[in-house]
């Protein structure tokens, strides 16, 4: 069985898939890839099922030695890449030979890259998922981020066709000159805020703070005021929730969010725009626009079409 030998782990490299669904009633967070769109693209490009596990690479990438020849693809954040010291284009799938060294160098755009390997990362399933949830050391490679010296098991490549000539769609990873424009749906608790809260949310840009991570994106921008108390009786917290503690700065809940929360929720980022949020590095800024359910669904369908077009190529 093939494996990846970790020479350098990078800043935070974890095994992720589409998440650990079905256990939130037991307090188990969903986790999974922060940018599920790029995760799925990386899998499609190497002929995997979209739910196969990939490596999520954060800001600074790893150096990996392959025990056997593999088709690989990197989607999401763009890095300068080399195989055995020779630069490779990171736009589509390519082959790493047996014993080959894949090295991530300078980051060009985005915050998180997904390394798809034909056959997938084959760590054991924990509660139905290979995703790593670091705070509880659940899933992934021993429940932790990769470390130098690790041997990460790879699965047997399926018969799927690798898309060697296809280019990974990346428009959402690029840092724009201004803010990243993110669409939200109002609620579920917008009525807990002053009448102008949604206007204020849309009135200026929110900077992504340095203590943001897989659990949440901490933001600084126009203050949102509660009509009365900031606290609600704890209830479930979907991905994309903008919850607002008493100080009035929203916290955008991401993949490793807790399953429930007790702060009022002013709005929720649409599913199709979460990948873009996942690609925002600290210091970048977001702007929010309220949209309709129909627009949210249309955006998701457009992403699905992009993936289908890649698969059918």
């Amino acid at each position, binding site marked *: 069985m093939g494996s990846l030998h970790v020479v350098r782990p990078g800043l935070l490299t974890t095994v992720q898939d589409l998440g650990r*669904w*079905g*256990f*939130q*009633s*037991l*307090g*188990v*967070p*969903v986790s999974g890839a922060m940018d599920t769109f790029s995760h799925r693209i990386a899998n499609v490009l190497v002929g995997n099922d979209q739910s196969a596990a990939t490596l999520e690479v954060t800001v600074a990438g790893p150096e990996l030695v392959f025990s056997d020849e593999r088709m690989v693809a990197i989607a999401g954040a763009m890095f300068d890449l080399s195989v055995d010291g020779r630069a490779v284009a990171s736009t589509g799938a390519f082959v790493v030979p047996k014993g080959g060294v894949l090295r991530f160098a300078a980051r060009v755009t985005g915050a998180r890259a997904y390394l798809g390997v034909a056959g997938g990362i084959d760590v054991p399933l*924990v*509660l139905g998922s290979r995703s790593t*949830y670091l*705070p*509880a*050391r*659940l899933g992934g490679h021993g429940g932790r981020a990769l470390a130098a010296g690790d041997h990460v098991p790879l699965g047997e490549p399926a018969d799927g066709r690798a898309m060697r000539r296809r280019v990974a769609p990346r428009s959402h990873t690029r840092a724009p000159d201004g803010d990243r424009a993110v669409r939200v*749906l109002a*609620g*579920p608790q917008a009525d807990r805020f002053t009448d102008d809260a949604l206007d204020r949310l849309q009135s200026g840009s929110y900077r992504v703070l340095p203590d943001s991570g897989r659990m949440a994106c901490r933001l600084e921008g126009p203050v949102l005021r509660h009509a009365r108390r900031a606290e609600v*009786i*704890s*209830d*479930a917290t*979907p*991905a*994309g*929730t903008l919850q607002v503690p008493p100080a009035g700065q929203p916290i955008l809940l991401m993949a490793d969010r*807790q*399953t*429930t*929360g007790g702060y009022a*929720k002013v709005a*929720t*980022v*649409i*599913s199709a725009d979460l990948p873009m949020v996942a690609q925002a590095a600290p210091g970048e800024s977001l702007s929010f626009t309220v949209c309709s*359910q129909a627009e*949210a*669904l249309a955006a*998701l*369908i457009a992403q*699905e079409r992009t993936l289908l077009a890649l698969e059918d190529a």
Partner: protein
Amino acid sequence: MTSPALPARFSRAGDSAIVVEFEERIDLAINARCIAFANAVLSCGLPGIRDVVPAYCTVTVYFDPLRTEQERLLACLKQAASETRRTVDAPGRTHRVPVCYGGELGPDLADVARFARLSEEETIERHVVRRYRVFMLGFIPGFAYLGTVDEQIAAPRRAAPRTRVPAGSVGIAAGQTGVYPIETPGGWQLIGRTPLRVFDPSRPRPSLFQPGDAVHFVPISRQQWDRFTL
């Protein structure tokens, strides 16, 4: 007798979740209705449902918007809500949880006793005598919010949370009590520790506690604790 149940309120939480809210308060009957409703939604087996998460007085239904007929989903939720309108609390399982109180295993027992103006022994007695309900789980895997705690010993969270709370620690935070399943940062007042593993992903039932279960704490001596943890 109980007053007739109010109709459920449905709202959207983004494009892939619906929140069903019953009355907005922490109450046994309302929580029982949430759990019954969550079970009814799970058993309707509608394709596209990803997760059903009961909390104190709400149930959130997560679905895949690309694989769900939302009209059908809403109809199914409304049906389930009306069927569970007259829920009688069907108690879940009852757990007896051994706890060694005080000392190094319960470093905040003295503070809680001071808050309650009781002796440490009386404080333990007040914690032990009640039968608690698992209202919901959250915070970390397997963490059950148990209620409600005797008002006199219902000390608020610590002003400064601990960076490291050992697994098995039993804490109090206002009207709630609970067991930390794993080592984690935490702000609850720690009054004791249980040798039980309340969460283990390799078990067929990963979480000891499920919503709606009942919990009794049983005091054990330090000698018994040492035997448990050998």
